[in-house]
Structure formats: C-alpha cells, structure tokens
C-alpha cells in the first residue's frame, strides 16, 4: 500500500484569504515530513484538508489512496491538532483506552502510554496535569489507534527546551515503526533535526521541498556580510554568485552560491568593511524563502 497525499488547489469562497493556494505535495509512506511556514502560511489549513475536516474548493486531497474522510473513518490517521486540549474529568488511562477502542487495530494501551511517556500518570485526571504532560497525553491520543499517518500540528509549541527534546525522542520512536509522520513547526532546528524532508509553505503554496541541506543550498549556500557605512546596496545584487541581498542593522547580507567569487569582487570594488563570511543556516534560507516579497515558485527541488 502506498500513502499519497496530493494536496491541491483550493481557495476559500466568500473571503479573500486563500489559505491554501494551489498546493501540490506528495508524501510517501514511512516518511517524516516537516511543514514549515510563517503564521498564516497555510499549514493548519493544509492539515485540516488532509484530515477531511475541511473540503478543498477545488483540486483533490487523497489520503492513502482514498478521500480523507474515508481514510479517517478506516482508522488510518491520528492527529494532534493545534490548540486542542483534552476533556476534563477523565484519567489519562481512560482517555487512551477510549481512543484505542475506536480504532480497528490499535496499539496495546500500555504500549501507547509508554511510547508517549505518560505511563507514570496514567491514573491522574487529564485536567490536573501540567502543560508539558498534557502535550504528551495529546500525543498518546494521536498514536493510540496505531494509524498509518500521524499528523502533529505544532506539537511542541508550548514546551520548554528539555520537554521538547524528550518529546521528539517519543515521536522518532513512533516513526521508526514505519509510520508516516507529518508535523508542522516554527522551530527550524526541530524540522532540520527530526524530519527526512522539509516542505516550506508560503502563502498557501509549497515554495521549497527537500532535505534541510537542499533547502539551505536553494537559498544560496554562503552568506557574506559587510558594513554598508551609509552607502546604498545598489549594484550588490549583480556581484558574482549573489542570489539575494538584504539589509539588517546597517549591514548588507549577501546570499551567494559562490562566496569566494563574491568576496574577490567586493575587494576589487573596495567595499570590504567588517567582512564576515559564513554558511547560510536553515533560518537564513527560510527567511529568504518566506520574505513578504518572495515570489512563489521561487525554488522547487526534488527530495
């Protein structure tokens, strides 16, 4: 069986917001994919389409070869939605037993609790837990049915660094069972460190798709910066290798795919002041891909 989620065009009727605007994406079975984007880039909407919570206005979304709501009905998906909080007046164990009972082939409850790391407070009421504990319980809810696909919408948004790290250990051990994991996040290093593949969304479209390395390269692998000392950036964008120019705090940041050539040329025109040369980070790449002015379809790389 092959898992395919080809998310396509859709524009919200009756409003000017096109949250997901002609999105094409195929995810293979067993992949761990990060969905990156700024607020309002369409991550949550894309996820709601994938899970059949909303229907696309046009285009099609398929989940494991069927319509999303049918795949969900067949118990093939589990999810941790954004801002969801578990219901009060049940214990963790009761909640997970309940969710597991809805699925045709669930994980054994003890295993689901252990995978999510909530075994020790299985007998406590969900409304008496701390924020980090609640996140883990919500993860347990997502995986209790042992679904083919687990979708996590900003799963670590409210966690501190340590809790986040522990959380990712849990998620990776679930993914290692051959399950497909799709998660959205604001934390770039989280995407880089935990996903096989990163999909960058901007204004409802996929603007980059590939490994963390590929995405860094796509934004220009090198980063050269100089003090502008009051001068304009005119001409800088046409230097050899330069693919993008930005000004931050009186310094010009040149993204370049050939740092050597760029530096040599800067020296020749006498513009070297406080020179710094480095490698572009994923954050640099992300910022340039999703800059308010960035044109859609700028980069499209195969995974």
């Amino acid at each position, binding site marked *: 069986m092959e898992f395919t989620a080809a998310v396509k065009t859709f524009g919200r009727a009756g409003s000017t917001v096109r949250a997901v605007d002609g999105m094409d994406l195929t995810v293979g079975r067993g992949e761990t994919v990060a969905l990156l984007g700024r607020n309002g880039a369409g991550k949550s*909407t894309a996820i709601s389409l994938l899970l*059949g919570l909303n229907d696309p206005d046009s285009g099609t979304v398929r989940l494991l070869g069927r319509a999303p709501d049918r795949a*969900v009905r067949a118990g093939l998906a589990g999810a941790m939605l954004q801002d969801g909080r578990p219901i009060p*007046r049940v214990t963790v164990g009761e*909640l997970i037993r*309940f969710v597991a009972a*809805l*699925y045709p082939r669930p994980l054994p409850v003890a295993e689901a609790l252990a995978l999510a790391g909530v075994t020790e407070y299985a007998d406590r009421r969900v409304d008496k837990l701390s924020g980090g504990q609640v996140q883990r319980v919500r993860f347990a809810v997502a995986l209790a049915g042992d679904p083919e696909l687990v979708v996590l919408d900003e799963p670590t948004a409210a966690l501190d660094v340590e809790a986040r790290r522990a959380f990712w250990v849990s998620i990776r051990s679930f993914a290692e069972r051959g399950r497909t994991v799709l998660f959205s996040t604001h934390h770039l290093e989280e995407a880089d460190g935990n996903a096989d593949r990163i999909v960058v969304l901007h204004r409802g479209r996929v603007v980059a798709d590939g490994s963390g390395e590929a995405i860094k390269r796509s934004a220009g692998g090198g980063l050269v910066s100089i003090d502008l000392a009051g001068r304009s950036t005119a001409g800088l964008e046409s230097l050899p290798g330069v693919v993008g120019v930005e000004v931050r705090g009186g310094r010009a940041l040149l993204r370049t795919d050939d740092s050597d050539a760029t530096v040599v040329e800067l020296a020749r025109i006498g513009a070297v002041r406080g020179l710094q040369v480095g490698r572009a980070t994923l954050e640099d790449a992300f910022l340039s891909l999703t800059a308010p002015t960035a044109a859609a379809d700028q980069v499209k790389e195969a995974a």
Partner: protein
Amino acid sequence: MFPYIALEIRRTLRDPTFLVFGTGMPLMMYLLFTNLGGSGSYDDWKAASMVGMAAYGALGSAMAIGTGIASDKSLGWLQQLRITPLDPWRAVTGRAISSSVTVLPTVLAILLAGGLVNGVRLAAWQWGALVLLLWLGALPFTLLGIGNGYRLTPQGTGVVNVACLMGFALVGGLWFPLGVFPGWLRAVGGFTPAHGFADLGWSTIAGHAPGAGSLAVLAGWLLLFGGYAVMSYRRSARTV
C-alpha cells in the same frame, strides 16, 4: 459507540454539581407550584402536574447537556473526535444515550415526590410506564440540546436552551393545561414536541396508551432534531 457512551457517562457522574442542580431545580419547582398555589386539592391536577413537571425536568436535564458539549467543542475535543473512526451518527447517538443518565434521576425524583409528598396514587404498572416513557421520550430534546451545543458557544447554548425550554414548557402545556389557552395557541401547542412528550405521561395516568397523533408528533421531532444534531456535529469540526 459503546466506549463513547461509557466515557461520557463516567464524565457526567464526576460532575455532581450538574446532577444535583439538574435534578433539584425542577423538584423544587414542582413542590412549590403544587403546594403554594392551593390547587393541590384536585387529585387530577396533582397527578397531571406531576407528569407535567417531570416532563419539564426531563426536558431541562436533556437540553442542559448542550452546554457541556459546547465547552467540549471549545476545547477542540469535537475536532479530535472527528479524526477518529467514530462516524457522526454514532457520535451523536452515543452522546444522546449517555446524556439520558442525567434525565433518569430527575424523572425519578419528581415521581417520588408526587407519590410520597403529594399523595398521587397510581397502579404499579402506571408508575413503571411513566418512568420509562418520560425517560425515553426526552430523547428529541437531548438531540436538540446537543445540536445547539455543537453549533453555539457555551454561553450561547445556555441562553438558547433556556429559551427553548421555557417556550416548549409553556406552549406545550407542561405548566398550565392547554385547555386554558385561546384556540389558536391550543392548536399550536398540540404540535409542539413538549406536548407530545408530556402526553405520553398523561395517557399513562389516564390508563390508556398514548394517542397515535402524539406519537407521530414526537417521532417527527425526533427525526428533525436528530438530523439537526448530526448536521451541527459535522459543521462543528470545520476550522474555517
């Protein structure tokens, strides 16, 4: 569906305030109305008002569940349910069945008060039939309350449910017999779900089976409110 019913019943039983006040309010109203007004001397009215108030209490308990559902929705729980294999019809049916747990004690409390405090005398089968009919007959109202809960905010649900409850109780003749209304209102009252519901009880104390008309009216409302609840449930999971 059964795990869902079990889960929701367990949650309800852990909320004693809800149970105590849901049962206590109509009980107090019944005792006040029948003992302060001085109308307690007519045996017919005693039994009829007992049924009317038990029906009103059942109706209130049934609809009150909507507020709980609306707050579940605000927690995102309904969306979470939507992405499990539980299909909408089962979700709504399961929730309706689990809600009836709160209806039963209300009905029992008022019938007990009628028998023990107000001295209503009925045959054993009539008591049994009353409990059963008033319990099951509350289902359409449960569905209406649930539908409102799926659709509205917790505050909104509370207000709308109270308005529905008052309207139904008054126009349906649960508080005052339909006979005192002007002709047109009496005709409307006969078609309200609350009247069909209470008629189950009134027929029982009169010693005969409920009329086909009342049953048809109630069944019609059951379908209507059931459809409304399922539709609202589907809508509730949408994010945009």
